[in-house]
């Protein structure tokens, strides 16, 4: 707590407005450098109002005493380096992290978030090998077609994520006519021993590919991932501007032969192999008074109905009650890890975000109100937020997350009912 507060104070002290200067500009000051170095330092403070009476709390913090509040301080240093040669670019993004809360202290010093080598023999062709974040899909909060990436956090969709080790090629051609661009990106994501261990089952090469078209002013992607560490998947997405202030997008994904775990009302657990279809439809709209609306509907094909979730929560209540057997507890824990404890375990969601850039002419200030609703059980979370980027190279964001409280519902069974967060990030 003290460390984060000290870093926060230091960052704010650095954030003085740029001194006045005349309006001169010479491009020679910005000539390309062979080696570039950058990164950011972030201090984050969080306070979480816990729900010790919920089974999710007992499963997350077994053998810990009940606490109403959990305070977490996090300091993050991310360093990036880039070597620019003629046709070859090598880059590396490293992260160091110190996090401390009531229960645990985490220290990470050498996490490679991304890094590799790219060779571009011509503008429309490049080859890449290394750890990469390959983000597919057009969704803002969810991406059902994100087959070769770590799932994004819908509460913070733009947060930095770690890549997977892969080798890829990118080929692009442009044409006159309604199909003006065609791009093709085949890749492999090998999983073996210590490489990509969290991607899926080991000893697979995992081929995947994406075909991109800009056709009739619409972005269209067709995606495929071969059977291997994960089930075979297909997907398609699109995005299109309908005007100067309106964009629409959508995604559809199908995963074949997915093993899913269930628990019924009597506490019996079983698994089934299913084909899963997920889709998303969304829009982004800028109103005349500068409010940006993002609305998305997400059909989570691997999600559970409100009745199935309720069956699980009742079962987890029994498994975590005082005197429950260790085997019952472990059974509940396995179910949680198999999908019931994901950030969005439900079937149908609505995401709605209204953000106002520069309200009341406050330059560089953005305020936003975001809500995520489980349409099956009506539970929700709501997030007011304010951010400021007016200090050179500084970003400050504060937000609160309030969750609905009804028992045996998606958001009503999360480990915390309220979360307050503030961070300052200094870029260099």
């Amino acid at each position: 707590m003290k460390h984060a507060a000290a870093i926060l104070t230091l960052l704010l002290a650095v954030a003085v407005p740029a001194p006045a200067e005349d309006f001169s500009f010479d491009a020679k000051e910005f000539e390309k450098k062979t080696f570039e170095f950058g990164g950011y330092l972030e201090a984050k403070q969080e306070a979480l109002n816990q729900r010790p009476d919920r089974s999710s709390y007992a499963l997350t913090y077994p053998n810990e005493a009940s606490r109403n509040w959990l305070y977490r301080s996090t300091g993050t240093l991310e360093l990036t380096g880039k070597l620019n040669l003629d046709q070859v670019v090598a880059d590396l993004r490293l992260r160091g992290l110190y996090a401390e809360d009531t229960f645990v202290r985490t220290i990470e010093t050498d996490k490679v978030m991304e890094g590799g080598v790219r060779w571009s023999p011509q503008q429309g062709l490049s080859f890449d090998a290394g750890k990469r974040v390959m983000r597919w899909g057009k969704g803002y909060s969810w991406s059902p077609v994100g087959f070769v990436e770590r799932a994004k956090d819908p509460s913070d969709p733009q947060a930095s994520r770690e890549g997977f080790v892969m080798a890829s090629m990118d080929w692009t051609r442009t044409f006159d006519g309604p199909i003006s661009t065609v791009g093709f990106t085949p890749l492999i994501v090998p999983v073996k021993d210590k490489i990509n261990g969290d991607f899926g089952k080991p000893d697979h090469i995992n081929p995947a590919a994406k075909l991109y078209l800009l056709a009739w002013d619409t972005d269209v992607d067709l995606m495929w991932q071969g059977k291997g560490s994960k089930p075979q998947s297909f997907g398609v997405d699109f995005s299109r501007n309908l005007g100067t202030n309106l964009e629409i997008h959508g995604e559809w994904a199908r995963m074949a032969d997915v093993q899913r775990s269930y628990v019924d009302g009597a506490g019996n657990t079983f698994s089934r192999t299913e084909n899963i279809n997920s889709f998303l439809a969304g829009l982004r709209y800028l109103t005349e008074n500068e409010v940006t609306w993002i609305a998305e509907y997400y059909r989570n094909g691997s999600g559970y109905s409100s009745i199935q979730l309720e069956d699980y929560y009742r079962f987890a209540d029994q498994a975590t009650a005082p005197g429950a057997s260790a085997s019952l507890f472990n059974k509940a824990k396995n179910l949680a890890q198999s999908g019931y404890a994901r950030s969005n375990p439900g079937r149908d969601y609505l995401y709605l975000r209204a953000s106002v850039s520069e309200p009341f002419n406050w330059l560089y200030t953005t305020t936003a109100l975001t809500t995520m609703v489980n349409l099956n059980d009506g539970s929700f979370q709501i997030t007011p937020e304010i951010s400021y980027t007016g200090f050179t190279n500084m970003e400050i964001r504060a937000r609160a997350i309030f969750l609905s409280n009804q028992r045996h519902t998606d958001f009503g069974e999360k480990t915390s009912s309220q979360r307050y967060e503030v961070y300052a990030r200094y870029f260099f």
Partner: protein
Amino acid sequence: MRYLIKLLAGLALLAPLAAHALDGKAILEKVDRNLEPESYESYRKLINIEPSGAKKEFIVYTVKKGRDKVVTLFLSPASDKGRSTLRQGDNMWLYIPNVGKPVRITSLQSVTGGVFNNADIMRVDYSEEYNVETIEEQGDLYLLSLKAKTGNVAYDKLKMKVDKKLTLPLEIEAYASSGMLIKTLHFKDVKDFGGGIKRPATIETDSPLYKGYQSIMLYSGLKKRVVPDEVFTQGFMPRIEELRK
């Protein structure tokens, strides 16, 4: 015969007038070419100034090809470095390195904040987006009234004051379809960039919607350059740095 003589005489009297008639389209196209070659690269500094005097600056590298293809790369500040934007006609995308995928944006949004919006930063030729409705002469100026060709253009109408001698804009007022003045651009500091390019190096912008705020765009390193069409695609957005020499 008398009628024919009268007709010929009438036509002879009208001929000088027709020759002298102003061709608004040609003048607008000349304004476009005098501002920039059709295909070019340039560096720009964008400065947002608050009423308090506090400033925020962005450096962007821009490459344009043909009538409607533009890419920009943010070189500074560090918080925005590596961001890039792409425009193909009415289509616009933003690439943020941390987000890692191009996201569609619209012309009225602003990737920098302040008075400049995306259409200002990724501007294509005026004659590509606007028809000349009227043109008149006023002393040393042409006064052009421009109307957007489609509803996808950021501003519905422009009123452009053009220096007759240089055929360069001095001031442009941008209006919404409701008739509301959105912003005024002032073109200043005509400078010789070499290669036959002589144009204003400074554009100052103010807006009644942002009273007391001002945004300034400074040009440097503007020169003719033609790159392959594949540069203006989503896949190239993370690689725009490769174009810089």
